[in-house]
């Protein structure tokens, strides 16, 4: 167990380092930050001086090494765009993204499972077929278009919900939350739907097909034969057995909800890390880009590591295999 864990952790660190290396080798293709940092009146001498000061004249390997050694001491550098420490910017922006991701994950889960069960039970009904067709649109329309459509309908035409921003936020400790004010909650609705729509349709389709499978299983037939009520069969027995793969997928999808909030955040001017990242790309704000990419890869690698270790704990076959190899 220990050796297996250590090996997995070691592999994860290698993956992280490689991600960082690839990221740093790409930064010079994003552009040159110097032009954005200096005004129109800068001279060639200014450009050279700033380039040297920032170490941008060094090969990317050296820049990466410097980033790593600073990051090891907790210093993620200073944003070129805002002139503030990257770590404090990230901490300031993280609550917005995490709250949005949590609400849209919850929305995707609840509505997805609900509709999935419904379409599975009434699979020949008109409503179920209608939902299935509409869900195809949900999967195939790009996020930004859905966002714009929702804004047009609910903010411009109906005037019910705000078109941008987080509304009023309250500071709880160091965490700015939009959950405690009416405007904050209202502001969450449209972006959460936009961000969660794809995951929702995914979960719905997954639940539906799993459910159909389970409903054909022998134990369901026996349950029917025993004369159990439909409700008990559908929700107590069938749904429970459907949920195992759904939970696995949802867990993995939560990571991508956070990582791919970028588009939704741009459309709704949601002040989270995704918007920060887009701004950083446009400005070629290398410290912010580097920190964001490392953060996201730490998150994904971390989730995978936990999943791997859990499998190991759950699945006895893995244990036998590794023991055989080790001994």
């Amino acid at each position, binding site marked *: 167990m220990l050796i297996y864990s250590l090996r997995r952790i070691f592999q994860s660190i290698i993956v992280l380092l490689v991600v960082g290396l690839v990221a740093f080798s790409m930064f010079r*293709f*994003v*552009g*040159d*930050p*110097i*032009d*954005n*940092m*200096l*005004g*129109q*009146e*800068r*001279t*060639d*001498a*200014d*450009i050279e*001086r700033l380039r040297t*000061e*920032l170490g941008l004249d060094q090969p990317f390997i050296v820049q990466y090494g410097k980033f790593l050694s600073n990051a090891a001491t907790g*210093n993620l*550098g*200073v944003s*070129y*765009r*805002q*002139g*503030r*420490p990257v770590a*404090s*910017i990230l901490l*300031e922006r993280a609550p917005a993204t995490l709250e949005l991701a949590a609400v849209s994950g919850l929305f995707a889960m609840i509505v997805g499972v609900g509709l999935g069960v419904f379409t599975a039970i009434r699979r020949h009904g008109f409503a179920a077929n209608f939902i299935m067709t509409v869900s195809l649109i949900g999967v195939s329309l790009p996020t930004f278009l859905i966002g*714009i459509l929702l*804004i*047009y309908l609910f*903010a*411009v*035409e*109906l*005037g019910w919900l*705000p*078109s*941008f*921003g*987080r509304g009023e936020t309250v500071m709880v400790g160091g965490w700015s939350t939009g959950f405690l004010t009416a405007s904050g909650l209202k502001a969450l609705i449209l972006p959460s739907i936009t961000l969660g729509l794809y995951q929702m349709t995914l979960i719905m389709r997954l639940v539906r097909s799993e459910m159909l499978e389970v409903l054909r299983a022998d134990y369901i037939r026996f349950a029917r034969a025993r004369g159990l009520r439909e409700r008990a069969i559908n929700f107590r027995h069938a749904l429970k057995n459907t949920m195992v793969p759904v939970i696995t997928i949802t867990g993995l999808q939560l990571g991508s909800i956070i990582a791919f909030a970028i588009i939704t955040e*741009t*459309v*709704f*001017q949601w*002040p989270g890390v995704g*918007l*920060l990242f*887009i*701004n950083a790309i*446009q*400005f*070629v704000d290398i410290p912010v880009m580097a920190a964001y990419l490392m953060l996201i890869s730490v998150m994904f690698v971390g989730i995978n590591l936990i999943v791997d270790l859990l499998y190991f704990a759950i699945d006895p076959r893995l244990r036998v295999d590794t023991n055989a190899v080790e001994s």
Partner: protein
Amino acid sequence: MKLLKTLLATTMLIGASGIAQAETLRWARAGDSLTLDPHAQNEGPTSALAHQIMEPLIMRDMTGKVVPALATEWGPSADNPNEWHFKLREGVKFHDGADFDSEDAVFSLERAMTKDSDFKELLASVKSVRADGKYGLIIETNGPNPIMANNLTNMFMMDKGWAEANNAVKVQDYEGGEETFAARNANGTGPYKLVSREPDVKTVMTMNENYWGKDEFPMQVTEIIYTPIQNQATRVAALLSGEVDFIQDVPVQDLARVDGADGLKVQTAPQNRVIFFGMNQGDADLKADDVDGKNPLADLRVRQAMNMAINREAIKKIVMRDQSIPAGMISPPFVNGWTAELDAVPATDIEKAKGLMADAGYADGFSIRLDCPNDRYINDEAICQAAVGMLAQIGVKVQLDAKPKAQHFPLINNLETDFYMLGWGVPTYDSEYIFNFLVHTKGEKYGSWNGTRFSNPELDKVIESLAAETDLPKRNGMIADIWKVVQDEQLYLPIHHQVLNWGMADKVDTVVAPDDAAKFKYFKLN
């Protein structure tokens, strides 16, 4: 929709009849200010926000005219043209109550001249700054500089004591790893006080009750809430839904919509920015073309032919939806040195252009790459696409390479492009600024944006001597002479002057400032 209209009408009625005391203006534009440190970034949105909170010695009003701010009188000394004397406004207080005097002015200007300041180039001619009593200031220049004062309109004044107490004497430098206090806090003398600021999210300002110009300016906006909204569709939606009252950067395709909406209007004005193409005419051979051993762009006839082939009216009608002013010179209209004759749009004449191409030995044309930004100017990529088709008519086969600005501008600076798009604004409102950066041979101090490889040492001398020429009629004559060379040589291919569009609720009453900086103390509310 009906409900919305009723609601809007109701709110407007309340707004009109009711309390005229607290008037909040909710303002949105594409980008946020980068920092509150007044000397760290010489950039449009950054200066625009700073203008609400802080003040320079002299500033431009909403029409672009130079007006007194913290200096009431100024001018070169009668007996020494190298010295500019400023009389500072008396009795002005910073937001924290400290007095503004010559000590603060000297401190601020010296801070703006330090190596990390983004404004040091504008003060490059300044030798020293010193106080002359409590309310007098002397700026000494290296040689006479007749337009020195024009460079001061975005040079904001800070309180020396406040900067020292808060460890903000130095301008933000990126290597230190620390944030300067001044990047997130501000203590100015301006018409509005900073209440709160979350970068990229929201900035709230409230009226400065002790402002020296409280009775001089309308000052009808008592609170400003500024939210950057990057996505243009969202920005327009926020205005249409009444969540904001005033937006800058209205996308051209939405102008009719905003203007047609109930309770909203669009106002336009020529912007201080001209868009043009630059051509490498100095090198013996080009890298981005298909002609071996020769540079087709070095031939004046080819440049003239290309100039004739571009149909600026068509670009205006189709690409810009009428939101541009076709240009014949690379200077915005309100700049000293601009004339209607020079800015006359060259006639599109394909036959004549083909003749010139044949005379130059390129009857079959040639191919070349055009480098173009796709996120910097209004419809930049679309303009380039239109130009590709127009130049094809005279046999110039153009491959368009459009990239984000962060990748485009280094090409110009590193001389890696032979044919490129560039836009130019003139903060000093004087032609010298254009010549220094775009016409003078590229070198250490001058010509840093000149990617044409054009070099004329005699012309360079005239350009350099402009700075010290105090005889204004003579200086204007020199400027006219330089423009003649620029036009005769067809140094650049001018396209158009950009037009600024501001969208706002009907209650907002303002003119559109050519530098795109809204100064809310001038705003009236109906």
